[in-house]
């Protein structure tokens, strides 16, 4: 911090530039490189996502941004500050939802929020008021005085999110916020996150669900093997790396003339691109119904044919040759 007028401030106002700015960011664990030189920039008010499969380096990145893991190389500035030297000051303005819940099981639901608020320096009265407000927000008021241990997974996740909000964070870091939850619990959580977004909180989240990324993110990067494979809004990415529609064909096993590779090759003539997966063939085209008709006309042993719109899953498949959730 040698510049005469540091861009970063400790006082609580948000700097003019990006809230998070990484250049050539690297994380190594011993000889293993988990994050391999990524450039990321997140603006205030944005909802930014890291989409990637297991081991892509999402959590490692999040931990660096959360100032609990020093970068191995590259530069990282958060709220205009350097996480290595001003980690404590930055963390005071972050909300962190780690991949695995780290709730304090020795305390009650309410105490979890109160104690956490105290860590941020809130007064006792402020902490109590904040806890009431956030438990309401997380729909946990009824369980306020229960122990944490017997709560369901979804409730624990909501509590973790509520806890991350005690300091009215400028940036909320969510590492796989809905993994392991049932569809209803996920929608409840998404709803809460939408509200935060409307209030102007900057969201940074990781996920390997493309629907989650599509729902929540204004902009996202696709990560694979510690690198960024593509960047853009969900729509841009789909437009750029996929077609409007997709035909998914499941074929009967072992029927001569309907081998997946052959089917793909024949259909590829009229389509932009095809992919052969272990259980199905994907045909990328602007008119999926036409492709389906052609498949039928050619007499392939089709078990089922599904036409749908492209998703980020298709983008990912295109970029990496692999599926997201394996």
């Amino acid at each position, binding site marked *: 911090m040698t510049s005469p007028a540091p861009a970063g401030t400790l006082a609580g106002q948000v700097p003019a530039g990006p809230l998070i700015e990484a250049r050539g960011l690297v994380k190594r664990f011993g000889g293993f490189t988990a994050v391999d030189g990524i450039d990321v920039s997140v603006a205030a008010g944005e909802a930014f996502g890291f989409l990637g499969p297991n081991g892509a380096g999402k959590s490692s990145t999040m931990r660096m941004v*959360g100032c*609990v893991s020093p970068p191995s190389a590259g*530069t990282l500035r958060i709220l205009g500050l350097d996480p290595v*030297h001003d980690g*404590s000051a930055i*963390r005071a303005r972050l909300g962190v939802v780690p991949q695995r819940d780290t709730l*304090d099981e*020795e305390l009650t639901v309410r105490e979890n929020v109160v104690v956490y608020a105290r860590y*941020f320096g809130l007064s006792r009265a402020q902490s109590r008021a904040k806890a009431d407000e956030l438990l309401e927000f997380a729909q946990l008021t009824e369980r306020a005085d229960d122990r944490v241990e017997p709560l369901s997974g979804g409730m624990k996740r909501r509590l973790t999110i509520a806890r991350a909000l005690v*300091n009215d964070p400028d940036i909320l870091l969510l590492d796989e916020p809905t993994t392991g939850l049932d569809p209803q619990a996920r929608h409840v959580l998404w709803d809460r996150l939408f509200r935060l977004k409307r209030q102007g909180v900057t969201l940074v989240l990781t996920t390997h669900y493309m629907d989650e990324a599509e729902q929540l993110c204004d902009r996202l990067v696709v990560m694979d093997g510690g690198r960024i494979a593509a960047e853009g809004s969900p729509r841009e990415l789909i437009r750029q790396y996929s077609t409007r529609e997709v035909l998914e064909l499941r074929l009967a096993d072992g029927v001569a003339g309907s081998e997946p590779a052959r089917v793909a090759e024949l259909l590829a003539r009229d389509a932009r691109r095809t992919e052969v997966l272990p259980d199905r063939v994907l045909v990328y085209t602007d008119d999926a119904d036409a492709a389906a008709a052609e498949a039928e006309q050619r007499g392939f042993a089709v078990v089922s044919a599904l036409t749908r719109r492209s998703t980020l899953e298709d983008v990912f498949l295109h970029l990496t040759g692999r599926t997201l959730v394996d």
Partner: protein
Amino acid sequence: MSVQAPPGGALRAVARSVPFPLGAGLAWRLLERNARSARRYWIVIASGFFEPVFYLLSLGVGLGALVGPIEVEPGRSVPYAMFVAPALLAASAMNGAVFDSTISVFFKLKYTRLYESVLSTPLRPWDVAVAEIGWALLRGAVYAGAFLLVLVAAGFVASWWALLALPAAVLIGFGFAAVGMAASTYMRTWTDFEFVQLAVLPMFLFSATFYPLSTYPPAVQWLVQATPLFHAVQLERSLLLGDVGWGLLGHAAVFAVMAAAGLVVAARRLDRLLLS
């Protein structure tokens, strides 16, 4: 902006090493959390008071009848109970501090992962070290105070110097807690706690706690004098029996050194473990 430690790093580390609470304002908050969770098992905490009292009754009163008076300085003998009581005070300061700083810290480090969540707030590893040691000392002070009251009530206290026995017990606890915490950052599994037992139990049994140093042959005496608990016992025994000299500062210095060294190592190691 480089990611290497800046030249100011060492200075910063020194600045942060200012004793509690100056260097660790938010550490109080973690201490508060411990107190809050302790409300749920206060009865366990309260039960800790009885351990030295039971030992005092058994050794001091029961065995004391068999043993007879002990000569503590030339020409002065005291009942065995008075001889053993200060040792029990010192030993329980050690045991409590070691327990609080090893098992319970390890549990929070590896199992409940409490510190992981604490460190995503403004608190730093240093705060964690200070708070946990502070908590151990707080409990230790309460136990020592209560035990001293028992000794006073039983008439086992011979001098006003005994007032200093309480701060002495806290200092002893500080030394052991800091070293214990540093040690617990090196533990990988519960199995490693057998090494803690291996250090603590022989000290408890052999550091001139239950019988005078002169019982040992000279070669062994030298070894006994090398253990920290020996110095703790000497310190408390001198204070409670009013047998005070400048030498006591030497005994006290042992624990000041242990505390400083333990704290520095513990905070460093926590940095490495938690901010990886």
